[in-house]
């Protein structure tokens, strides 16, 4: 039962709790005051009643006296005025008597009242007889009646007087008792008021603490959050008031802030990774460029010189020489120019053509190079300087110094989502261990190698991986020594590019 009420109370809003607390207190104060007023009124009424009895008795005494006087006057003068006066007084006396008790009682005062009333009745009857006798001129009878009435008058007078005295004595005692009871009431009511005030203060204090405590906790938590500590424990509430609503909202806020922080951290990590990738890529490019520049001293001077040579050959009608020099100039220009940009597959293939041409001039046509290229794929942008280093490897490590005729085949075709760039030679081949070493990047381009353009396989593999974010785009296959080598580069195609190629 109590727990039910308490549950209900804890579900109330602060406003309602405060109103309830104040209303209850006010109600109790009001009830106590009401009780006090009612009691005071009751007691005052009692006092009134008590003293009015004295006043009534005095009136009765006066009327009695006047009645006796009026009878005497009538008997003395027999005037109609005095008779009238007697009748009036008799009526008044009778009226006043009607207020007296006429029942035998063990209360002395009540009993006295009864006696007075009865004696007065007897007295009045006697007076009537006397007056009647006077009117009938029965001298003997009215004289006797008057004497008797005087006696009775005296008795009644004394009794009323005594009753009055006793009533007054009783009234004084009652009045003292009344004063005493009012004093008791004062004590009781002040005690109750003080106690209620104290308890009320305690209740309000408790209530205020119940309200303020969670607010304090809330503020503390908020400060911690403001200071950057998002791992504050969730605040507990067992009520359902306004503070609880705020606390719950705060808890929700903390939870969602934590969620956001996790999300932001994830995306920042991603961004960081991407930046690192970019930086790495740049480093590799720079590395390739540097190596190239190391190998080429002042390429512009070389181009210009080459161009001058080509013009000279043209003027001398040495067409072969002219073509050779032009090709060489193109090759180096491409190398210099395209090192930092992406190139199309077509440009790459052209670069390979130039390279092979130059080598064939150098080695008197020893390299049999053929290509099988899907021309629809030539527009595809890819990192530059990818195919040429592979071809260079095929020349330098595959078909150089072999007994048989060296052949290099370049094929470019689409296979599923990829463009496959395949460089196949029939040279010395590679052992499995060596292939693994190449994948692991443990083979470095021999710096003393004079024929190298300076871009190693390692560089190509890393750039491919960085550019497309995929591994295994570079594959080396060889069946063993003297079995030739096949190097395949896979370039991923987006769906849009695939559609584009299909429509070509």
């Amino acid at each position, binding site marked *: 039962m*109590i*727990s039910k*009420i*308490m549950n209900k*109370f*804890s579900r109330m809003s602060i406003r309602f709790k405060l109103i309830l*607390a104040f209303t*209850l*207190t006010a109600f*109790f104060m009001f*009830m*106590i005051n009401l*009780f006090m007023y009612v*009691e005071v009124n009751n*007691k005052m009424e*009692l006092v009134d*009643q008590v003293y009015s*009895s004295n006043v009534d008795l005095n009136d009765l005494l006066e009327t009695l006296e006047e009645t006796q006087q009026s009878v005497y006057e009538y008997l003395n003068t027999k005037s109609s005025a005095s008779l009238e006066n007697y009748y009036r007084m008799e009526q008044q006396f009778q009226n006043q008597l009607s207020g007296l008790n006429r*029942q*035998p*009682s*063990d*209360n002395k*005062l*009540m*009993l006295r009242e*009864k*006696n007075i009333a*009865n*004696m007065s*009745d*007897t*007295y009045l009857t006697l007076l009537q007889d006397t007056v009647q006798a006077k009117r009938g001129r029965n001298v003997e009878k009215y004289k006797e009646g008057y004497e008797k009435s005087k006696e*009775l008058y005296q*008795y*009644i007078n*004394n*009794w009323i007087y*005594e009753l009055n005295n006793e009533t007054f004595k*009783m*009234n004084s005692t*009652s009045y003292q*008792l*009344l004063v*005493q*009871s009012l004093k*008791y*009431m004062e004590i*009781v009511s002040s*005690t109750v008021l003080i*106690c*209620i005030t104290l*308890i*009320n203060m*305690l*209740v309000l204090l*408790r*209530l205020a603490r*119940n309200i303020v405590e969670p607010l304090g906790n809330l503020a503390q938590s908020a400060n911690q959050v403001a200071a950057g500590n998002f791992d504050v424990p969730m605040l507990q509430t*067992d009520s359902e008031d306004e503070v609880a609503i705020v606390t719950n909202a705060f808890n929700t806020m903390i939870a969602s802030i934590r969620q956001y922080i996790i999300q932001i951290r994830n995306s920042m990590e991603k961004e960081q990774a991407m930046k690192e990738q970019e930086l790495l890529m740049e480093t590799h490019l720079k590395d390739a460029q540097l190596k190239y520049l190391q190998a080429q001293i002042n390429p512009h001077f070389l181009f210009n010189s080459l161009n001058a040579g080509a013009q000279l050959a043209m003027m001398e009608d040495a067409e072969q020489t002219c073509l050779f020099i032009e090709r060489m100039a193109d090759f180096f220009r491409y190398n210099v120019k395209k090192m930092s940009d992406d190139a199309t597959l077509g440009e790459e293939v052209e670069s390979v053509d130039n390279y092979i041409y130059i080598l064939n001039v150098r080695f008197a046509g020893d390299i049999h190079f053929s290509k099988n290229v899907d021309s629809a794929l030539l527009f595809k942008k890819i990192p530059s300087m990818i195919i040429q280093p592979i071809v260079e490897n095929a020349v330098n490590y595959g078909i150089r110094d072999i007994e048989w005729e060296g052949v290099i085949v370049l094929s470019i075709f689409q296979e599923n989502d990829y463009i496959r760039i395949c460089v196949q030679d029939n040279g010395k081949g590679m052992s499995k261990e060596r292939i693994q070493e190449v994948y692991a990047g443990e083979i470095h381009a021999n710096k003393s190698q004079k024929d190298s353009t300076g871009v190693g396989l390692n560089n190509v593999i890393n750039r491919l991986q960085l550019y497309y974010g995929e591994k295994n785009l570079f594959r080396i296959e060889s069946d063993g020594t003297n079995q030739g080598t096949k190097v395949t580069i896979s370039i991923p195609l987006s769906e849009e590019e695939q559609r584009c190629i299909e429509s070509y």
Partner: protein
Amino acid sequence: MRKKLPVFIGISVMILLTVASIIYYNYITNSLKINELTKGMTYDRHYVMISLNASGQFWQEVYKSACETAENEGAYVELLGEDSSQNYTLVDYIEIAIAAKVDGIILEPEDTRNVQNAIDEASDAGIPVVTVLEDCSNCKRLSYVGVNSYQLGQKYGTAALPLLQEGENRVMVLLHEEEKDIASNLIFTQINSTLQEGLADNQTAVVNSQSISSQNIFDSEEIIRDMLMNASERPDVLICLNEADTERAYQAVVDFNLVGDVQIIGYYLSDTIISAIEKNNIPMSMVVDARELGSYGVEALEEYRNIGNVSDYFSVDLTSINQSNIMEYQNMEEDS
């Protein structure tokens, strides 16, 4: 939940405190008996008991018993002559009772003409009158409750006999002027004859009576002291016929250092008399059963009211109390 508990305890304490203090306050004011003015049992009939000695312990006892009997019958008895500041005579009281139209009068009368007339007047007004302790002859009283005067005189005489010594003895009987009637005379003569008959050979007894007027309040005291001071008239045995005389005589005997010289035969047992008997300063006291007196008085009135007729005489027990049986008597009183 636990946090809310103090709030609820507080509110409960508040309610409890308020209710408790209101109850406490009511209890206190009720115990002050402030409303006694208008309180009281009401009764069907109203009797008055009139005695000029009403304030004495004996009459209080009679009155108490009368009240108890009356209450069972649904009547109330009022005692007159007790606290009146007016010097009313018996006749006055009877007149008052008649005027107040009471339902019956229980009266300790004086056997005088005026009282007889007043009793007749009451009877004519339809108010039955029962005389108690003393009778009133030649009037229309309804019934008499009390001790037979003849029997009383005999008892006193018998009681005085063992107190007499060899040689001449003076015996004094204190009578009241109003009682110098047939009843008083009867008592006196009966005492005298009982004594004379019972005297031993070597004893003589002179029995005298002293009348005391009850009109003047202090007369009785003066007369007793005069009597004791005068060695030649000093009685050997002093017989008192009422409570007040017994106490006065005893006080005078003690004051004049005459304990043992003057033997008092008293009447009734007041506290003073009891302690005197216990010390053997008063050898004996006659006790009329006050309770019987009161209750018979009321019973006579009730019987008359119910049947219309009632016995003329109700006899009340008379006991002589001395040192040997006083304890027994008191225990009996307490039991009743």
